[in-house]
């Protein structure tokens, strides 16, 4: 009897270990979150987009967003951005990727930001040439969408892999959004920028932690 119970118990234990591994190694394996910096001038969120993730990343060829800081020196591979509720969030994106062009030109116009505009390298505007779009930072649930222009294809000193520095060719895009009630909102990119995948929408475009993530309003 004891031998049988031992057998049953060990099988049950092995099953539980398997379930736990499935739960924690795969299912609950969500990319980390980063809190926006709270400064005297308001809440600041610094992001960067690169043509390819860091060389030691599981997918070193995938395009990706990163969280960084104002000096663009502290790169973290996190795509859940934590921001306070009912406040203005100033977003700055350091954009290092080239243009791939929008499939739906409609998205080349910014919407949902404060004033409906954004600045591109310091210049205020509300739309870009759709063919020049490299990425889009969009929060469709909040109606927010900002096109990110690409680095010219003949620019010097282009950044191939994360992390990049401000000395390399890049575009700086800034805009301000107003957060509402607390909640979990998703963000994504609309440019078919996942090279090699059909319609440019596989891989990084379908993986949270690369071109998708959450805006966690707390």
């Amino acid at each position, binding site marked *: 009897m004891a031998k049988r119970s031992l057998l049953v118990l060990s099988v049950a234990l092995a099953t539980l270990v398997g379930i736990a591994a499935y*739960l924690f190694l795969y299912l609950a394996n969500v990319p980390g979150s980063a809190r926006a910096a709270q400064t005297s001038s308001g809440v600041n969120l610094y992001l960067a987009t690169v043509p390819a993730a860091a060389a030691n990343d599981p997918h070193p060829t995938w395009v990706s967003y990163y969280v960084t800081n104002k000096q663009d020196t502290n790169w973290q591979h996190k795509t859940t951005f934590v921001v306070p509720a009912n406040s203005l969030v100033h977003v700055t994106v350091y954009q290092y990727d080239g243009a791939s062009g929008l499939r739906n030109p409609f998205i080349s116009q910014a919407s949902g930001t404060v004033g409906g505009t954004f600045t591109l390298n310091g210049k205020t505007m509300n739309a870009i040439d759709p063919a020049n779009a490299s990425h889009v930072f969009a929060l469709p649930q909040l109606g927010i969408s900002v096109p990110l222009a690409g680095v010219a294809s003949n620019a010097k000193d282009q950044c191939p892999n994360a992390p990049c520095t401000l000395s390399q060719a890049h575009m700086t895009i800034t805009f301000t959004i107003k957060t509402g009630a607390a909640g979990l909102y998703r963000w994504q990119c609309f440019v078919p920028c996942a090279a090699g995948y059909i319609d440019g929408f596989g891989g990084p475009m379908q993986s949270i932690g690369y071109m998708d993530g959450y805006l966690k309003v707390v």
Partner: protein
Amino acid sequence: MTATANRVPAQSPARQRGLLGFNMLTGIILGVVGWWVFYLLGGLIQGYTNHGFSQTGQNDVQIMLGYLGGVIGFLGGLGFLNYPIQRMMGYPPNIPDHEVEEPGLGKYFRLTTDHKVVSQQYFVGIAFFFFVGGLNAMLIRTELLSPTTHVFGAQQYLTLVGVHGSMMMGMMTSGVLGPFANWLVPLMIGSRRMAFPRMESLTFWLLMAAGVVLITTVFFGGFQTGWTGYEPLANQGTAGYDAYLGFFGLVSISMTLLGLNLAVTIATMRAPGMTWSRLPIFCWSVVATAALMVLAAPMLTATLLMGISDRTLYTAFFDPGLGGSAYLWQNLFWVFGHPEVYVLAIPGFGIVLEILPVFARKPLWGYKIAVSGMLGVAIFSFFVWQHHLFVSGMNADLRPFYMLSTEIISLPTGFTFLAFMATLWRGRIRLTVPMLFCLGWAFNFLFGGISGVFNSDTPSDVTTHGSFFVMAHFHYTIMGGLLFSVMAAMYYWGPKMFGYKLNERLGKIHFWVMFLAFNSTFGPLFAVGFLGMPRRVVTYATNLTGLNDWVSVSAYVLGLSLLLFLFNMVYSWMYKRIPAEDNPWHSRSIEFQLPTPVPAQDFDEIPVFSGDPYPYGEALAPAGAEPATAGAY
């Protein structure tokens, strides 16, 4: 009888199981080796045929080859490969096509040609993957406790949905034919084996390999297409989707061979006197199902090969920009897929109608109409597939036709119900556990069928298509139909198959918990669908939270009821082992006239059948008498 019978020289089991062992362990070891060998070889192929590799870092050729190598290694390790090589040199097969009595548990982990051992392997193997699929269902319901993402996130949620759906729709196609038909058909028709016993074993091990392949998807990031794998979304999928292709590819091959084997067995190996009109109704359901498997499953194989070649050879079957079509997948998939859902349903009809006469103590009412019902469902199921595409934008002129053909399929289904109901009428109904499950089947399938009418009616389908209503509908037909009939079969034949009694009281508790929890889970989902919640979404309208939470809690209870069944199996087997009687149900079908456990050779001599398969009733046997055939078979 000719004198040439059975001149295949008998060989000792030791030879084919010799040096390497040839069991599951060597299978797994060689499977892993095969995976790595082919995976590394595939890594060399990065050129033109693997176009996007440099940009995606994803070598589908390599992964598909890895799966191929893994499966070849696994089957080789089990001993399937030394057989073909011998044959190529002109030697007769050295694996006997029937087994001799062999004690110990070793035979369950090997290539075996005893149809009863294969069916027990099937039972345990399928139950394992059923519980894996069920675990995913529990996790899906956990995520849906809240209207927004809260536990797993959007990406993992879709993998859960995909693995649950694929596991259930893929593995469970053999859920009756594997464990029960392999065991019952040879006994019922009076042969001692299947027509192709080695192929019988192959189908089982292929299915197990398939299940493992599907689980490996989590190492490649999962897949986000659900079990239908609609293109071109699927073509965007990362390497996790290769697991889906490999899984269904293996399942479809296993299904084809299983169906072929069973159909041939019933067609050619019926004992003297076992005419078609004396065939037990369960065998008829196997014939209908096997026909679907033989004809429909190869279409799935072909469709998956197209999907694989799109990802590896850079063809464009499903890429609309390059001359392919997204509809092509939908059409091909459902040409197979609709017969496939009847592959899941028809065996349930057979089980229920087979068990019913025993506990109603009456002959099966309307044998011919029941048979024609099953065959009718099988035939019609090939002509209804476009009802999955009612709002897809396919040619609108065809919709009235598919509406009609879909609704016509309820006529043969109705025959089954007529036979069911009329058999009960004026019987002496014994409410044993198997009988309770049969009645539960009727209750659930009734609602599954009626909700199907809402789906088949195009105007109504505009609302219900792709919603939780559809999801509730097919859970009522497949889970409420197939699973309840499988449970009936388990309690009815289980003691005969495994040689020990199942606890009756636990069985009754199991039935009532499962029946109530099942209806409490999927009943409200009709309402959820009617209120506008699409399938496979991770978020939903906040006003549906209450209903969804109710469903989730019921689903946990449903899951627990299945654990109760598992507990009953283990408890009755290990702790309270009471050997089963030869004929606990006073059944008159032939398998219950054999001793328990059934000997390896089944019959001492090939039986000769005479008379009706269901000789119950006052006119045929004096009231109160034990079956007249006791000891006669």
